[in-house]
C-alpha cells in the first residue's frame, strides 16, 4: 500500500515539461511486459474454460480435484517445500551470521561452497543420487544404515528429495541472505546487543533476525518457488510431487485438464508467495503507526 502511494506521489512530481513523454515511455514498457506475461496466461485460461461444444465450462477445473493423485502430489510438494525451507534456514542463517562475525577469509569459502550447486546441473545431481541409492542397500544391508537408506526414499515423504532441494536452493537462498546481511553491521549490532544485556542467542534473535526479515522472506520465496516447480530430480528418482504429477499423472486426462492444472499451479504459487509477503513482509519503515499511540501519551505525561 505505502509503496503504491509513494509511487503516485512520485509521478505527480514528474508532471510538466518533457515529463509526459517519459510517462508515456513507462506506460509502453508496462504494457509490453504485461502483455508478455498475460497473453499466454489468458490464452491458457480461455482454452480451459471454453469448450468447443458446450461453450463456457469449469469442468476442466472440477475434474482436477477428482483426478487420481492430485491431492497427494500437491500435499507432498508443500511438505517438501516446508521441510526444505526449514532445513535451509536452520543451516544457512547461523552459518551466514557466524561467517560475518568470524572473518572475511571464511566468508569467501562459504560463498564458493554455496555457489557450487549452480554449476552442477540437476540432471547430474539426480544421476549421482540414483547411483548412491542403488549402491547403498547392497553394502549397507547388514548394518543399521539400511533403515536410513530406506527411510530416505520413503515415497510418502522422500527425505532424499529434501536434501537435494536444500543443495539446489543453496545458491539462491545464500545470495538473498547475504544481500540482507550486507546492509547490516552485524558485528557492531551484536556487540551493542550484548552490551545491553543480551546473551549471544538473544542478540541474534532479537536484533539480527528482525533486521533480516526481508532477506529471510526472499530466501523463503526462492526456495518455495524452486521446490514447487522442480521436475528433473523428483522425476528421475521416481517420486511424484506436484510438478511430476502435472506431466505424468494427468497424462490420461484430456488436454484442457492438463492446461488447467498448470494454470492452477501458477495461481497456487502466486497465492503462497502473496500470503508469505503479506504475512511477514512489513518493513520497519511502515511500522511507526502502531507504536506511536502509547509514546504520544507518554510525551503528554512528562
Amino acid at each position, binding site marked *: 500500500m505505502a509503496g503504491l502511494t509513494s509511487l503516485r506521489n512520485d509521478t505527480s512530481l514528474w508532471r510538466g515539461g518533457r515529463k509526459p513523454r517519459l510517462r508515456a515511455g513507462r506506460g509502453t514498457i508496462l504494457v509490453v511486459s504485461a502483455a508478455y506475461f498475460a497473453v499466454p496466461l489468458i490464452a491458457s485460461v480461455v482454452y480451459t474454460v471454453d469448450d468447443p461444444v458446450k461453450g463456457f465450462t469449469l469442468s476442466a477445473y472440477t475434474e482436477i480435484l477428482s483426478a487420481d493423485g492430485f491431492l497427494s502430489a500437491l500435499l507432498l510438494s508443500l511438505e517438501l517445500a516446508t521441510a526444505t525451507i526449514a532445513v535451509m534456514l536452520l543451516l544457512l542463517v547461523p552459518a551466514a551470521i557466524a561467517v560475518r562475525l568470524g572473518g572475511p577469509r571464511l566468508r569467501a569459502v562459504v560463498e564458493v561452497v554455496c555457489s557450487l550447486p549452480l554449476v552442477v546441473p540437476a540432471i547430474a545431481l539426480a544421476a549421482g543420487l540414483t547411483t548412491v541409492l542403488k549402491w547403498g542397500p547392497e553394502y549397507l544391508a547388514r548394518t543399521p544404515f539400511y533403515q536410513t537408506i530406506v527411510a530416505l526414499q520413503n515415497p510418502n515423504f522422500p527425505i532424499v528429495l529434501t536434501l537435494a532441494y536444500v543443495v539446489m536452493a543453496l545458491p539462491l537462498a545464500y545470495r538473498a541472505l547475504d544481500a540482507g546481511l550486507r546492509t547490516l553491521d552485524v558485528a557492531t549490532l551484536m556487540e551493542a546487543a550484548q552490551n545491553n544485556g543480551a*546473551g549471544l542467542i538473544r542478540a541474534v534473535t532479537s536484533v539480527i533476525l528482525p533486521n533480516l526479515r526481508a532477506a529471510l522472506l526472499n530466501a523463503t520465496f526462492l526456495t518455495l518457488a524452486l521446490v514447487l516447480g522442480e521436475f528433473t530430480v523428483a522425476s528421475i528418482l521416481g517420486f511424484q510431487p506436484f510438478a511430476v504429477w502435472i506431466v505424468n499423472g494427468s497424462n490420461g486426462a484430456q488436454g484442457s485438464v492438463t492446461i488447467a492444472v498448470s494454470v492452477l499451479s501458477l495461481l497456487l504459487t502466486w497465492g503462497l508467495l502473496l500470503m508469505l509477503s503479506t504475512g511477514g513482509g512489513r518493513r520497519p519503515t511502515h511500522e511507526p503507526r502502531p507504536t506511536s499511540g502509547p509514546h504520544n501519551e507518554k510525551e503528554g505525561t512528562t
Partner: protein
Amino acid sequence: MSTSAATTAPPAAATAQETSATVEFRQVRRAFGAAVALDGLDLAVRPGELLALLGPSGCGKTTALRMLAGFETPDFGDVMVDGEDVTAVPAHRRDAGMVFQSYSLFPHLSAADNVAFGLRMRKIGVAERRARAAELLELVGLPQHGDRYPHQLSGGQQQRIALARALALRPRVLLLDEPLSALDAKVRLTLREEIRRLQRELAITTLFVTHDQEEALSMADRVAVMHAGRLEQCAEPAELYAHPATAFVAEFVGTMNRIPGRTGDDGSVVEVLGRRLPVDGPQAAPHREVEVLVRPEAVELLADEEGKARVTGTMFLGALTRITVRLADGTVVKADMTTHAAATFPAGAAVTVGLPDHPVLIDERRA
C-alpha cells in the same frame, strides 16, 4: 581529582560519586598475531571521573575499551572494576554501557525501543520501560524523537540515542569509543559539552576514547596518552600541556617546535640559540646533538635588522597569530603572539629568536 571538575559539578554529584566505580588496568597485554595492541597497559581511573584515552590511531585505545566491555580478553594482566577482576564476566553481564564509533542503533526499533532494549532484556515491565526510556530521551535532549527510527535521525541524534541506550541499565562505567568522530564539527562541539554535562550530573566513571587532542583536553578530568599499547602519561589537561613527561606526549599534545641544540658538560644543561638552559625531564649524555622542545607561545621574536632568522609566513588564528620563522640553519620555528603584536612581523622581516629562562624538554635529534 581535577579541581575544576569538583567546583563546577552540581551538588548531587558529590554524593553520587561515592558510589561511582573505579577501573584499573594492570599490566594488560593483548596481541593479534604479530600486532601488539596492548603492551602492558597500566592505568587507574578514579571514581566519577571522565578519563580521556588519547593516542594516535592503532595505539590500542579501542582494544582497551573493548576489554572493559568484555569483547576482548587480555592475554596477560587484569582488568578490575571496583577492585574485582572482571575478565571472566561475559559481555552481557559487564555493567558497562558503551557508545560505539559507528552508528550502532538497532535499525528495526524506534529510538524509544532502542533505549529500552536493555530493560527488555532484563525483563522489566512495559510501563517501567516506557517511563525510563522517556526519562533518558529527555536527558539527552530528544524527548520528541522516541517514535523515530534510526534512519529518520541525524548522525548526532543517533549518537545521543546511543548514549541514552548506554545509560539505560544504570551501568557503573560508561565507555565512549570516539563517539563524535563521524559527526560534523559543529554537532561535535555541542555534543561534547552535553556528554560532559551528563557525565557530571550522573557522576559516572567514564572512559572516553579519542585521537583528537583538543577533544580530550577540553572534556576530560584527566587525559591518558597512549603510544604503541602503553601508557605514556596520565595527567590533568593543564599539567599534560605544561609538563609533558615524554617527547611523544609533548609532540602529540599541542604544537611543539624542535630546535637543534647541544648538551653541555653534564647532561643537565643544553645550549640552544646561543643560550644555556636547564634540562627538564629525561636527560641526555654530555656533548650530544639534541633537539630542544619548545611550545610556540614560549618562543620570543625580536625585530632585528641584524637578525639571521626570517619570517616566512603568518597564520591568523583569531586572537592569536602564528608566525613561521626560518632560522639561519634552515630550522623552521613557529611562534604564537597576539595578533596585535604580530603586525610588526611582516613576511620577510629579519628577526632574532629568543627563549625564556625555563627548563626545557629535549629529545634525540631526528634525521
